């Protein structure tokens, strides 16, 4: 396996707060990589840096060998590097199917395609994916009226609709009914194996991330604390200290 995202020496500060200091990590193509750390440790900042949400202070970020740290959000998204948000972001006034259809991969559409109607296959795919995440019954409801957990599932389905190469998920299980989490883990796995999407996941739920990830990175106070296989991370005293507040 080769690295599809290569982050090296990335730093980012907001005023006097050093959110990320000299972070280096790689995401393996075709795998599931986890990113954990206590609240405020800089996980979402790192995600934002990767997808071009804000300029970084130093370091380099490469996607498929291409430097992307100077590129804008839509440009990076069109390369096939997509993210979901911690606070869900869906198009509230449209129904679920419309939300799905607008998520068609625009990098594969020319301007002429934009002036065409969606085809029957597009709708079929949208409904199939809504069924995949368990929102089939709600497909004609306005997305804004769904619960937080359902919006999270919708956002995940929208991301799949976009056919990304890499999907960055910011806390996919937060706010989801615990009984549904096993189903979600299964779907995330299938997205990885069946659709061949490389996943890079921020997650607080240890049971989830330890079950899924091949490699886990742990951040604390904006610095890389530890990295390795889930078993190693679980036993790492520094990680346990960070979570229990020994720092």
């Amino acid at each position: 396996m080769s690295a599809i995202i290569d982050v090296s020496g990335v730093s980012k500060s907001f005023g006097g707060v050093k959110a990320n200091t000299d972070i280096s990590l790689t995401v393996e193509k075709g795998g599931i990589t986890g990113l954990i750390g206590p609240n405020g440790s800089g996980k979402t900042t790192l995600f934002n840096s990767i997808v071009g949400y804000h300029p970084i202070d130093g370091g380099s970020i490469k996607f498929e060998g291409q430097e992307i740290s100077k590129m804008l959000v839509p440009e990076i998204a069109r390369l096939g590097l997509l993210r979901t948000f911690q606070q869900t972001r869906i198009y509230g006034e449209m129904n679920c199917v419309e939300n799905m259809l607008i998520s068609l991969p625009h990098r594969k559409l020319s301007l002429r395609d934009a002036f065409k109607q969606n085809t029957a296959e597009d709708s079929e795919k949208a409904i199939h994916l809504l069924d995949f995440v368990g929102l089939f019954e709600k497909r004609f409801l306005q997305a804004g009226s769904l619960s937080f957990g359902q919006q999270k599932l919708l956002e995940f389905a929208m991301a799949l609709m976009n056919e990304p190469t890499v999907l960055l998920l910011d806390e996919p299980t937060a706010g989801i009914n615990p009984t549904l989490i096993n189903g979600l883990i299964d779907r995330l796995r299938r997205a990885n194996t069946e659709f061949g999407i490389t996943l890079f996941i921020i997650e607080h739920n240890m049971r989830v991330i330890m079950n899924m990830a091949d490699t886990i990175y742990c951040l604390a106070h904006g610095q890389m604390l530890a990295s390795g296989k889930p078993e190693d991370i679980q036993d790492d005293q520094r990680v346990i200290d960070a979570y229990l507040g020994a720092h």
Partner: protein
Amino acid sequence: MSRNHLFYAVLLAATIAAPFLFPSYTAFLATLWLFIIVALTWDMTGGQMGYNSLGNIFFYGTGMYAGAVIAIGLYFPVGEWTDASRTEVLTVTGGQYYMGMLLGIPGAGLFCGLCAYLIGPLFFGLRGPYFAIGTLGLAIAAGEIVSNIEWLGGGQGISMPHSPLHPDFEKVLIYFLYAGLGVVLFVFLKWLYSTRFGAAINAIRDDEEKAEAMGIHTLRYKTLTWAISAVFVGMAGAISAFQLIHFEPLETAYQTINLGIFMVVCVLLGGKGTLWGPVVGAILFHVFKEVTWNYFLGGQWVALGLLIVVIVVFFQDGLMGYLKHIRPDWFGIRVDEKEADA
């Protein structure tokens, strides 16, 4: 489906027959179509895309001037035509008048579209209220600038070539120009909103950051939408120029406080972000305006202000939004259970 077709056929027939059935209301109906056009185009950015522009009147005024310059410039140097001190009488023949109309109206539309396309990237850096104020500034500044250009007649304004038609027939011609443009616009928007383009601008309205994160070409779509709406407003402006015969920059062409606000009120009244909302709103508003302007003269601005306050406080979603709220199933919002065996 056939019921729908029948509905549209009846509407179209009514549109064609109206000036002959109610000849004394031809001017009233022509203005109604103007309102429908500006409301529908305002809703493209304001309702469908979430960018509330207060400066679309810029394209109306620019369309008037562009139409005038083309219609006059085809046969005379514009500076000579507008020179107030000239003594000789310049007139155009009937053929020249219609040629000016034929080229002036689409020409004005294209010119306004080009303007929007060029200034769009500048203004779409602004969001929310800043976009509204920025565009308002554009319209006000344009009015002041034009009123200082002697070549365009300055603050005195500019006179159009005289129509060879009898005023009664001219009225009907103007009505059909507006109505034709309005019908074309409505059909065009009905199609546009059904395409991926329509969905993309709706996505920008609902969450622009998300749309960007999903890789949608947001700036391209925003600029194109504004440019398309500018084409239609510009053409409507050029028709107005032919209708008014003489117009001046501040009160007529770049009339920010009149038509510039009316178009927003029409859309708010009918319901933002719907195809029918602006049309219904324009009709309601036009009737309201005619009634107050005729029977409460002197108090009409108070009545208008009151109307705006009532809409903004009690009916933020307009008439269509209210219907959507009480009858969601009419708009296809429903829980759809899976088949039992699926």
